[in-house]
């Protein structure tokens, strides 16, 4: 992200950030199953906004879920305030585009062409619009970072973007960017739990191959 934002400053062009469509059309948003992905994406927005404020890059954020607009305004404002650059915050750069998937994607394509973005950061919940948006940014030669927990759009963002955060990396990114020891400890605990689960899976697999029905024993 540092690389992308630095590049945008050098080129004098804006940075674009979006949390994606997140099932907005079907009364989705933070109240739906996309909610955690959208919120995790918003935690990364804070870091992006802070970097933009530090280096003097223009940050344009776009949304398909209107309830995220006030949340993002507050996050970006806070990031600029923490860098003593509140006067450089532009409220018109926090943009609701459309809650319709393809209208959202078309809106972003138009915005990319008008603003000639230098960096495109997509962290959140994506559907088919991910391909259109990422490819649109690629046509402008934009540097791209994308992250999502969903698996359907991962091949797309993996193929097009320069850097990707896949699956659990996406949730861990916000903690990784934080200096908070409690949050880092929680991540460590999560990793240990995961290793335990992997070990259990391997042991259960071996036991099953040896002819024991582990499910019967677990039910006892």
């Amino acid at each position, binding site marked *: 992200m540092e690389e992308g934002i630095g590049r945008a400053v050098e080129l004098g062009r804006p940075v674009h950030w979006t949390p994606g469509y997140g099932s907005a059309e079907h*009364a989705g*948003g933070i*109240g739906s199953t996309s909610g*955690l992905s959208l*919120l*995790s994406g*918003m*935690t990364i927005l*804070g870091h992006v906004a802070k970097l933009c404020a530090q280096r003097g890059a223009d940050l344009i954020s776009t*949304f398909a*879920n*209107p*309830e995220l*607009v*006030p*949340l993002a305004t*507050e*996050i970006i*404002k*806070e*990031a600029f305030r*923490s860098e003593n650059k509140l006067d450089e915050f532009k*409220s*018109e750069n*926090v*943009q*609701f585009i459309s*809650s*319709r998937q*393809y*209208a959202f994607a*078309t809106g972003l394509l138009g915005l990319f062409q*008008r603003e000639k973005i230098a960096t495109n950061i997509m962290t959140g919940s994506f559907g*088919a619009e991910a*391909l*259109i948006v990422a*490819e649109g940014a*690629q046509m402008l030669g934009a540097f791209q970072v994308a992250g999502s*927990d969903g*698996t359907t759009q*991962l091949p*797309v963002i993996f*193929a*097009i973007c320069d850097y990707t955060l896949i*699956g*659990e990396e*996406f*949730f*861990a990114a*916000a903690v990784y960017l*934080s200096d*908070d020891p409690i*949050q880092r400890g*929680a*991540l460590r*605990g*999560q990793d240990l*739990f*995961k290793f335990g*689960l992997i070990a259990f899976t391997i042991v259960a697999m071996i036991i099953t191959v040896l002819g024991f029905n582990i499910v019967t024993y677990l039910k006892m």
Partner: protein
Amino acid sequence: MSIIRRDLPVWIAFLVGVILLSDYVFSLPALKSTASTITNWAVIVTAFSFGIGALNIIQRQSKVIIRREKYWIYSIVLIITLFGTLGIGLIGTINHPYYRIIFDNMMAPLNVTMSSMLAFFLASAAFRVIRAKNFESALLLIAALLVMLQNAPIGQLIWPGFPILGDFFITGFAAGGNRGIQIGAAIASIGFGIRILLGQEKRWFGRSE
């Protein structure tokens, strides 16, 4: 910083989260009705948020028109379309003939056009990525070719083993990798949810500490 801005969102998130999670785990009538009320509130708040979205569009486009920024003429078109559609929808509901004309003859064809363009975007992305530049991309190229030959009818004509091999790649390697990512993401999302509920994660509403 005021308590309302600093602590209230954390407490609301905690209370709502605990009530909804408890409703999922326990079957108590009082809990069920409270959870149902909260879910209804969420739907109402989401519906109202579209008003915020419309205001955001009007504010931004008005600025573009007033400042005569580049392509300001399109902002006028957008504002007229927004108020026109809203007006017709409010006066005659969404079943009004004019509303249907806008939806069926403008919105739907534009939507389908963008949807069909996915094929071209996909071809463009695939052409750039699927090239044997190194060992990993060579593997990707081979896998992509096998899966394409599995799905295309010509694959079976060339060699009957292609569908079996392609199926092995999809149900073996791809499904295994996919499940690994999904399990990892599920564990991480539980961890993230707990951090939000306990107020350890505050950056989602703009607090850095």
